[in-house]
């Protein structure tokens, strides 16, 4: 039983509590994007020639593209030449042990509740911490290696496992895929790399914690997860950023590959700085996440709790290529004040007897706009495909907007597709009923919202569920009454 009451009580101030700036010496490169920028990034990372070529191809392709404008978002013009594309905490060499890591950096992650000292981690979660453009420290690397599991920063993977990286990079999300994917492919800085070998069940949750610290920088991380035949891994991603008046760009790519009978569970608690009450500042979150169920009976499951960012543009998707493969998408998206979110999923059914489930819970408050956008595509050869979609919207104010854009493209008549959608509000009667029992309005909203989102929250790993529940309450403070 979860102690919602205590959780709620801990939440006292409605402020974004991760908004501090760390005083860490940072190395940055010049503003703006040109071929030189791409070459500098690649050189700083001591990359092989093929990767530089990959970046340059992506960059040249990006030049031919336009920023997409089909989403239900009002995106102010972004000056791509005014962004710093690489920033890294200064360090002489890659630290070999925790003692060599800048204590300010350790303090930062400690403040965020991410302990990097392994003896402090009780829950048995391995963490890769990424500050600005660089991975700071990956915990439990050695004990995972005993099982043949590779969990390291993307840059390290390029150095130590170039063949694996080259084999899978860009295979799920091509650099031509979209504007932001092309941009990321050109300038991506760091991120996490996971490889689970055949038949291995990863014994602990793998987690990456992303932190933007330096002003005027963009964060372009790249995550690649490969689960080989019969492998299993559960992966978590968390993110925060300081409060700043300027908008900052975040354009990440996550690629997942699940081979025969492999299963990957990917959970995100996205809490980038959302901007202030008047909509000033905040992160622009333009992310491409896609998983390929390559093998038969493979499964990829996305769970996301999206509470942060000024603008979110994100559609974690599954390509169900293997026969009997399964794709899942569970989402809670909260928007408050002037936040905008256009998020959802794509389920592309290609193999036979493929199944997908979509559960989307949108919660809108203040003057925010919250859209679900989803595509269920059944290819001609996808015999016996099934999809169930459920899209619910909860409105907490008169001035917010909730929108649903479900698309279906069915080219095989054996498909069974179900779609349910609801829109609801928290009624005055519900709030008063809670108050009459002694529960304050704020707490009542928290209870009702968490109840509404329960189906998705239950999918999160325990360690994250409590955090996410708190986050929901913080995000909505002051939104009712």
């Amino acid at each position, binding site marked *: 039983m979860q102690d919602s*009451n205590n959780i709620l009580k801990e939440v006292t101030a409605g402020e974004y509590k991760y908004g501090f700036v760390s005083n860490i010496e940072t190395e940055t490169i010049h503003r703006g994007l040109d071929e030189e920028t791409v070459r500098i990034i690649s050189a700083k990372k001591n990359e092989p020639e093929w990767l530089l070529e990959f970046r340059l191809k992506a960059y040249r392709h990006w030049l031919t593209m336009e920023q997409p404008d089909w989403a239900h978002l009002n995106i102010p013009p972004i000056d791509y030449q005014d962004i710093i594309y690489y920033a890294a905490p200064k360090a002489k060499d890659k630290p070999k042990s925790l003692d060599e890591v800048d204590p300010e950096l350790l303090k930062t992650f400690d403040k965020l509740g991410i302990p990097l000292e392994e003896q402090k981690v009780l829950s048995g979660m391995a963490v890769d911490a990424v500050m600005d453009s660089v991975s700071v420290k990956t915990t439990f690397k050695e004990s995972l290696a005993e099982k043949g599991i590779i969990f390291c920063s993307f840059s390290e993977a390029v150095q130590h496992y170039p063949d694996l990286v080259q084999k899978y990079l860009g295979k799920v999300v091509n650099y031509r895929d979209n504007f932001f994917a092309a941009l990321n492919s050109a300038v991506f800085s760091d991120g996490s790399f996971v490889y689970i070998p055949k038949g291995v069940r990863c014994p602990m949750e793998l987690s990456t914690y992303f932190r933007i610290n330096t002003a005027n920088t963009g964060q372009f991380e790249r995550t690649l997860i490969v689960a080989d035949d019969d492998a299993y891994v559960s992966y978590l991603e968390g993110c925060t950023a300081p409060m700043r008046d300027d908008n900052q760009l975040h354009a990440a790519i996550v690629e997942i590959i699940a081979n025969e009978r492999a299963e990957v569970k990917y959970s995100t608690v996205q809490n980038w700085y959302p901007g202030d009450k008047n909509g000033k500042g905040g992160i622009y979150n333009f992310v491409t996440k896609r998983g390929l169920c390559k093998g038969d009976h493979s499964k990829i499951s996305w769970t996301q709790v999206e509470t942060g960012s000024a603008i979110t543009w994100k559609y974690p998707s599954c390509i169900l290529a293997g026969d009997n493969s399964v794709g899942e998408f569970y989402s809670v998206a909260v928007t408050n004040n002037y936040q905008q979110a256009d998020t959802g999923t794509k389920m592309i059914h290609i193999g036979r007897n493929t199944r997908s489930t979509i559960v989307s819970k949108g919660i809108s408050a203040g003057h925010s706009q919250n859209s679900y956008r989803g595509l269920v595509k059944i290819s001609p050869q996808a015999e016996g495909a099934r999809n169930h979609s459920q899209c619910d919207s909860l409105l907490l104010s008169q001035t917010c907007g909730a929108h649903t854009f479900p698309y279906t493209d069915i080219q095989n008549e054996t498909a069974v597709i179900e779609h349910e959608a609801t829109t609801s509000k928290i009624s005055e009667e519900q709030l008063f*009923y809670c*108050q009459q*029992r002694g*529960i304050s309005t704020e*707490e009542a909203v928290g209870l009702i919202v968490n109840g*509404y989102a329960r189906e998705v929250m239950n999918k999160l790993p325990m360690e994250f569920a409590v955090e996410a529940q708190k986050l929901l309450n913080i995000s909505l403070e002051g939104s009712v009454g």
Partner: protein
Amino acid sequence: MMLEIKNLHASINGKEILKGINLSVKEGEVHAIMGPNGSGKSTLSSVLVGNPAFTVTEGEVTFNGKNLLELSAEDRSREGLFLSFQYPVEIPGVSMVNFMRAAVNAHRQYKGLPAVSATDFLKMMREKRAIVELDNKLASRSVNEGFSGGEKKRNEIFQMAMLEPKLSILDETDSGLDIDALRIVANGVNKLKTPENAAIVITHYQRLLDYIKPDVVHVLYKGRIVKTAGPELALELEEKGYDWIKREMGD
């Protein structure tokens, strides 16, 4: 005196419903408030518990020496005022266990007590639901969702048992109940009765008062208490209806 209402006037959307209520309730007493439809019975209970839909335009209410009208709805609850709703609202997704835990701990915090432990809380839930014969599925069910009419009312009395209020207002708790449910609900209320607490029972009909014995019976008519007497008044109303009251009032 536990509750003292003096010259209470209240309105909704500019329409005056209560037109000068005077009522005093002592510890250990059960008061019945009867009256025809539209006389202001439910408005009185709503105003006492601080329903924001109503506006108090005149008068005073003290509850255990405190100015009740100055308190927020949640603080009135924490001070020991409980309403058994006529139409309990459904709250989908919120389990009874989470809901009650939030309520009980809010009350405890108000009194400066630490939050109740999970074990003690579940034990308490078990004991109290037995009073109204609710089964162990209650804890995991969402608040009032999919409850039958009788279950909703039993759930109200269960919550009353959990919160141990000083003054309980039962707003037409008998409406929509069959005779078995009525007996369970009334027995529950009687079991919770102590010399230190009090109850106001709002009802149309005598039948609830066969089970819950009132000390005082009031008749509310057109926003005023027009008659106050002992339990025999309820029997008289049952026999003669409300017409004679109306005639007495010159209508």
